[in-house]
């Protein structure tokens, strides 16, 4: 399980970012989590609490937006959401495609803060 080291990286990234905005109190962290990021949401949520312990982020919430996997279909020439990550093909025409456009995100996208 590597979610604890991921959670610690989140805490680090957020603290760095928060410092750039002066002395703010962080209430929530918004995170985009791709289905192909290799990180399990539930494990990350419980690790986050641990990682925040004794830091300025203690008591803050981690709000996760899960990003589905989108591939580019060479046949239809448009992006499509895969119906399962066990089957990388166009859900419309069935053409296999390895080209992933979205779904690998592991990104802090917002902070809810008060001064």
């Amino acid at each position: 399980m590597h979610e604890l080291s991921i959670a610690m990286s989140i805490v680090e990234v957020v603290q760095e970012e928060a410092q750039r905005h002066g002395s703010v109190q962080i209430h929530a962290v918004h995170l985009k989590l791709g289905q192909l990021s290799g990180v399990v949401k539930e494990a990350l949520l419980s690790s986050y609490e641990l990682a925040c312990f004794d830091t300025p982020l203690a008591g803050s919430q981690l709000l996760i937006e899960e990003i589905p996997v989108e591939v580019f279909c060479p046949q239809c020439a448009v992006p499509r959401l895969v119906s399962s990550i066990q089957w990388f093909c166009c859900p419309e025409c069935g053409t296999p495609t390895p080209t992933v456009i979205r779904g690998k995100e592991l990104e802090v996208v917002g902070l809810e803060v008060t001064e």
Partner: protein
Amino acid sequence: MTTEPRLVEVRKNVLKQNDVIARVLRDRFRQADVLAVSLVSSPGSGKTAFLEKTLTELHPRYKVAALVGDLATENDAARLARSQAPVKQIITGTLCHLEAAMVQNALDGWDLNEVDFLFIENVGNLVCPASYDLGEDLRFVLLSVTEGEDKPLKYPTIFNSADVAVITKSDLANAVEFDEPAARRNIQAVRPGMEIFKLSAKTGDGMSGYLEFLERRRIRSHAATTL
């Protein structure tokens, strides 16, 4: 008076630090004309035997080196040292995967100009290594015939993150009634177009096709460097 929190927009990749180091490594490999290959698999799929055979086969003609990730022991490095290639163990302690910084530290003191092929054996784990770029040119995922054909479907993320699949222990395929077409189908389902090699490090069967592939890839990356 309590103020409502305001939303500050940011855009920060959580693994940025790892990715920055991975990029530095990739540049170093390119400049020194090294083909860096990482190996991922579940424990017991034959990574070390496969690597030992690879090092032994390439050693007379090329300068090869290996970094080996392991939770606690140095047994793998001792085994691989029999190939005569320089081998360094990275003991990860309780960490279930390698990170780019560990590779960078392990390479400290090594002259990459003296290396043609660098192999990086990750910790035996099909989950955690998927998220970490190590700066490698190619990621190999190993699947032994004794593991079951549905492994790719159980761990689609790591199979999708790999460039090449290697079916190992092919000498045991008949004994365990390995369904090769199903395994190939499952690999292609999670990573369409992925190159697949089937081989036995024990008997040497299938090794030559895979070794030729490695040599071709190194020539190709060399050509890209000198362009």
